[in-house]
């Protein structure tokens, strides 16, 4: 229809020339020129373009991007007129899916194709489907922070970038499992490795790197991160993202629905990683005691994931073996002898007997350590003057159940003491056991630890406990023993582990490695039994229990106030925080919220709560879109129900978080 000419070569219809560049927004790109009219449908135009290009290729993913209007022309039945396109429009004919580099919560880089034309919410959902992370509504993308000069130096040039650009996911169905991983990962060794990277915790970072990474030094710094969230209702292209750009994928909403270790390995791991980095980089503060627990869990998780026991707790096997042995033992006994023997055999408990030096601090006593014959049976410790007197009455007998066990060890000084605080009706009694060497120490220490929890050395965890203690001792020898500073690199695959990689840098400054090690080990005894996913879950739970957990900070200025303040947004409430002091000024809960409005012109958010409480503020550090999305997002997340499973009410989400038509 278009293109009728007179003999002179003039066009006599209303057609005009439309120039379309082929490729992504590249001014140098080749272009084709078409003859179109205002009534041309986009679909027809697309067809013509493909014809013009004369290249055989799958063009199905391509669409037209209108640069000036920052808009995709996706409605193929619309006409050019309807879109308002004139001859001066700069149009690009390019793929809708383009590669980007995702920086995952575990800080690894992954290249994959993301949709540049769908609203970000859908694009993220597609990414999550590819990565097999359920509940994509909790995640979103951030712009990478501006690169600084410094950063380039730090970065190892050949950082491994996993590549998933070739992987195509069929349909919207949940991918089937194949060989323990979603089928689309099992295509090649490369993708398999990628899946392992996603689903297994990463080793602890190099302490040196950790120290150099930027950490927020104040509440204000913590607001920076949140200014970088992308809009979920607009597509990447509209937000100025180009192919090959780096984006961060993070859990944005701290409301983790239906977290199930069995079906969420990637999600759980990534969540764990995000939590860990939050703690290591001091995005969230915790106390010293809490840090030790986190460190112990990291140590444990790392140990398990290194040993390859990904799904199975490392200790089950020996444990099962023991049980099997016990059972078969029992069987034998049952056949042959009287049942009472069975009882005996099963209840026989290994004991420790040895010469140890004992010290009991008492007032007005200067006696030091004295050699005694010590017998440790079940959970009871008895000591005698000498071995000969052992059958008689001990000097003292202590039941270690419920006692506190504190290591007092200096490897380089060859000091291996166990301090016991044993509860008794009169209070706690203190006693020190001094062992001769590491082996002895490890056996006794492990026994004491189990006894304090009411378990005996017959417990299946005894041997692993001994091993763990020995491992930690060796660690101390290599690690913090001599020089207080960073011994080895980030090489975490060896048994030895640098405690500095497990704690936030401020603890690195505060403690020497040899001080940290025993404390981490102490905390470790409480978690040593956990399987990998249990440990990760425990880590996440402990993280969630921190008072400051899940608060996203934004600098705002409340209406009628003259100074900037911080608005904290959590999954159930808004918190007004004093910028300078960090004190909570006021809390409003979402459950009391009636409505909220955004005035896009003056960038002000107004919220009405029950009982006619009205709050209004303008956003300083981030756009009010981000605040608006956070609020709407949390409201949306609170509407999720288990019964509905995983289906996602996309429209509701966009309704709650979008609403920017006026914008």
């Amino acid at each position: 229809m278009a293109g009728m000419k007179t003999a002179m070569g003039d066009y006599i219809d209303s057609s005009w020339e439309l120039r379309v560049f082929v490729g992504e927004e590249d001014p140098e790109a080749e272009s084709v020129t078409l003859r179109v009219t205002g009534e041309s449908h986009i679909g027809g135009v697309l067809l013509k373009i493909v014809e013009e290009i004369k290249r055989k290729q799958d063009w199905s993913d391509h669409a037209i991007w209108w640069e000036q209007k920052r808009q995709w022309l996706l409605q193929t039945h619309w006409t050019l007129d309807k879109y308002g396109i004139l001859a001066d429009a700069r149009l690009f004919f390019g793929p809708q899916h383009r590669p980007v580099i995702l920086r995952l919560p575990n800080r690894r880089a992954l290249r994959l194709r993301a949709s540049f034309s769908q609203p970000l919410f859908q694009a993220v959902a597609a990414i999550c489907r590819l990565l097999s992370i359920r509940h994509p509504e909790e995640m979103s993308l951030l712009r990478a922070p501006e690169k600084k000069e410094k950063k380039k130096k730090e970065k190892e040039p050949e950082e491994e970038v996993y590549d998933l650009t070739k992987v195509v996911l069929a349909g919207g169905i949940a991918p089937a499992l194949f060989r323990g991983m979603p089928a689309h990962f099992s295509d090649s060794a490369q993708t398999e490795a990628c899946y392992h990277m996603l689903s297994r915790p990463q080793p602890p970072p190099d302490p040196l790197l950790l120290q150099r990474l930027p950490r927020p030094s104040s509440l204000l710094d913590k607001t920076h991160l949140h200014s970088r969230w992308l809009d979920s209702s607009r597509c990447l292209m509209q937000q100025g993202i180009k192919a090959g750009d780096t984006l961060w994928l993070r859990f944005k909403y701290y409301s983790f629905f239906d977290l199930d270790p069995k079906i969420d390995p990637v999600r759980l791991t990534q969540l764990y990683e995000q939590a860990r980095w939050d703690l290591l980089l001091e995005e969230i503060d915790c106390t010293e005691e809490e840090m030790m627990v986190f460190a112990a869990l990291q140590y444990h998780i790392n140990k398990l994931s290194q040993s390859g026991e990904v799904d199975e707790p490392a200790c089950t096997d020996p444990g099962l073996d023991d049980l099997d042995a016990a059972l078969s033992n029992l069987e034998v006994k049952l056949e042959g002898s009287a049942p009472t023997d069975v009882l005996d055999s099963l209840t026989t408990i290994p004991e420790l007997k040895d010469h140890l030096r004992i010290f009991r601090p008492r007032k007005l006593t200067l006696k030091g350590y004295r050699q005694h014959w010590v017998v440790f049976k079940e959970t009871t410790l008895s000591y005698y003057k000498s071995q000969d007197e052992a059958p008689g009455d001990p000097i003292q007998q202590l039941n270690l159940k419920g006692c506190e066990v504190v290591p007092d060890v200096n490897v380089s000084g060859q000091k291996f003491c166990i301090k016991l605080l044993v509860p008794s009706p009169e209070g706690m009694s203190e006693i020190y056991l001094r062992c001769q060497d590491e082996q002895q120490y490890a056996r006794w220490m492990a026994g004491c630890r189990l006894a304090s929890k009411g378990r005996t050395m017959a417990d299946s965890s005894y041997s692993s406990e001994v091993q763990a203690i020995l491992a930690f001792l060796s660690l101390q020898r290599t690690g913090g023993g001599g020089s207080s500073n960073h011994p080895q690199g980030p090489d975490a695959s060896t048994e030895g582990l640098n405690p500095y990689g497990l704690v936030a840098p401020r603890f690195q400054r505060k403690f020497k490695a040899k001080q940290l090690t025993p404390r981490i080990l102490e905390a470790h005894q409480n978690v040593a039994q956990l399987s990998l996913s249990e440990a990760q879950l425990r880590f996440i739970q402990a993280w969630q229990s921190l008072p400051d957990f899940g608060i996203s900070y934004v600098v705002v200025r409340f209406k009628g106030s003259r100074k900037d303040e911080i608005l904290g947004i959590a999954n159930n409430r808004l918190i007004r925080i004093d910028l300078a002091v960090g004190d909570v000024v006021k809390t409003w809960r979402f459950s009391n919220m009636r409505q909220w409005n955004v005035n896009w012109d003056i960038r002000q958010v107004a919220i009405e709560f029950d009982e006619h409480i009205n709050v209004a503020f303008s956003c300083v550090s981030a756009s009010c879109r981000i605040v608006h999305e956070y609020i709407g997002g949390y409201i949306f997340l609170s509407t999720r129900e288990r019964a509905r499973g995983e289906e996602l009410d996309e429209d509701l989400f966009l309704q709650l978080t979008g609403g920017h038509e006026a914008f």
Partner: protein
Amino acid sequence: MGESNEDIDQMFSNLLGEMDLLTQSLGVDTLPPPEPKPPRTEFNYSVGFKDLNESLNALEDQDLDALMADLVADISEAEQRTVQAQKEASLNRPPSASLEVPGFSGAASLGYGANAAATSIGQYEDDLPPPPADPILDLPLPPPPPEPLSQEEAEAQAKADKIKLALEKLKEAKVKKLVVKVHMDDNSTKSLMVDERQLARDVLDNLFEKTHCDCNVDWCLYEIYPELQIERFFEDHENVIEVLSDWTRDTENKVLFLEKEEKYAVFKNPQNFYLGNKGKKENKETNEKMNAKNKESLLEESFCGTSIIVPELEGALYLKEDGKKSWKRRYFLLRASGIYYVPKGKTKTSRDLACFIQFENVNIYYGIQCKMKYKAPTDYCFVLKHPQIQKESQYIKYLCCDDARTLSQWVTGIRIAKYGKTLYDNYQRAMARAGLASRWTNLGTANAAPPAPPSTGTTQANGQIPQAAHPMSTVLGEAQRHVELPKDQKPAPGVPRAQPLPKSSLPPPPPVRGSSDVSGSPGMPPKAKGTADGFPALPNDLLPPPPPPPPLEDDELPPPPPDFDAPPDFVPPPPPSFVSNVGSPLPPPPPPPPTFIPESAEKPPIVVKRPPVPPKRQENPGPPSGGGGEQDFMSDLMKALQKKRGNMS
């Protein structure tokens, strides 16, 4: 009135039925000798009693029977383990039991087990809808017939079976039981046997059954340390024996059974703990009200997420300095990981906090009258200590709050931090239990005390001896109750009755002294009240079908028939006879002359029904009230009923 008439008719028919049953049961009883079940008790000892004998005396029949069964079983195995057993034997209560023991073989015991199970189930159905696990019941259920198994039999069994069995046995063999004296809120006490696997929840259920209280969620076991002046409630999931075994032998500590609102206050009004109070006090008014839906969502949010939320709590508290009577004010914060304080010159940001205590190894207690004892600034104190510490020690931490509200917030907050979601689970279980109970009362005669009328019928039908016998004892207990009231406070039929009357009505409060004495053993109780009591008691027994008696009892009691006979006989004779009447289960009740010993509430004389009891517990049969006794029991019944009604409403 119409209602009550019906009731009475009902009771009458029940009575008749009961009599039938009993006569039947007599015959039956003799035939099948009671086979004591053989759960082995490793050792028993008692809590709250001076010595073993006392504790045994204090036990109710059922408990004693169960205990006896255990012991006898032990003996039969030729394991003369405990002196107690011998003592017991000397008591010669159930001689028959011991005789029978030898006869019982593996097979027999198995059969018995099944039997027991059946009966217990029957009871459940008949009686209270929510059958709390009766410890005694538990025992019989798992019949471990390991020893008796002959070799051939053993071989015949599949290996897997053997192993399972043996493991079970192992567990069973180690079960230890305690006789625990529980103080009621009316100053009476109740003794029950608690086995080491029982949680506070089980014991509570047990007590519910014994007391017919309203079973609401506030009921709790409560431990008090008179010496340290501290107390706390057991959490429902706590193992009772474990806690009690930390007590010293000569301890003055007690276990109470009472209602404490604080126990689950956080679930009833979560807003008081979770909202506001951070920052300004402005929220105070808004705290008070909150609609049910919001409460629910608040609870859901706090307890049902991936991790529970510990209430945000911080503020200045007084801390008692170690070993001194001086108190220092410090700023404390509660976190999931423990209590922290702000060191001098530091801020309250997480990184500056110093850990004051973590909860793993300590329990939280209320401090009582610390103002007097330790010169605390206020009386709102809470105490953290290792459960094993029983004496004053520098390892006990005392903290003092400004007001009651703060105290309850801290105590609750610490419990949440320490126990986490378990607390919520406990609450839901308690709610379910309370719900059942209330539904049952609605369905039933509205009277908590009298067991559902229909039950009698069924019981009889079953013809289970054990059941019949049990009913008796329980009924007696109830009868006593009824009786007691009229007697002591005779004039006032409308006297408000405390809801939670202990079923066995151990020692009722001081005023009721006489009755209290009686209460101790179900059998004994009635004696004190003159003859009149005796009369009513009987009818009552029969009428209201029995609560949940342990089946074991019957078995052991050889002479059920005497009971019946006894009553009539006794009727004419005054108090002493009564006693015997009660004790009737025992063959020859040699009623010791009732000695009147006013007993302090603490040690209510508790008589074991069957065994001729030590003299101590006798009571003065002749409390004045007895005089009225002669009237026909119907009128007494009526009175009792009316009272009940009054209470209920």
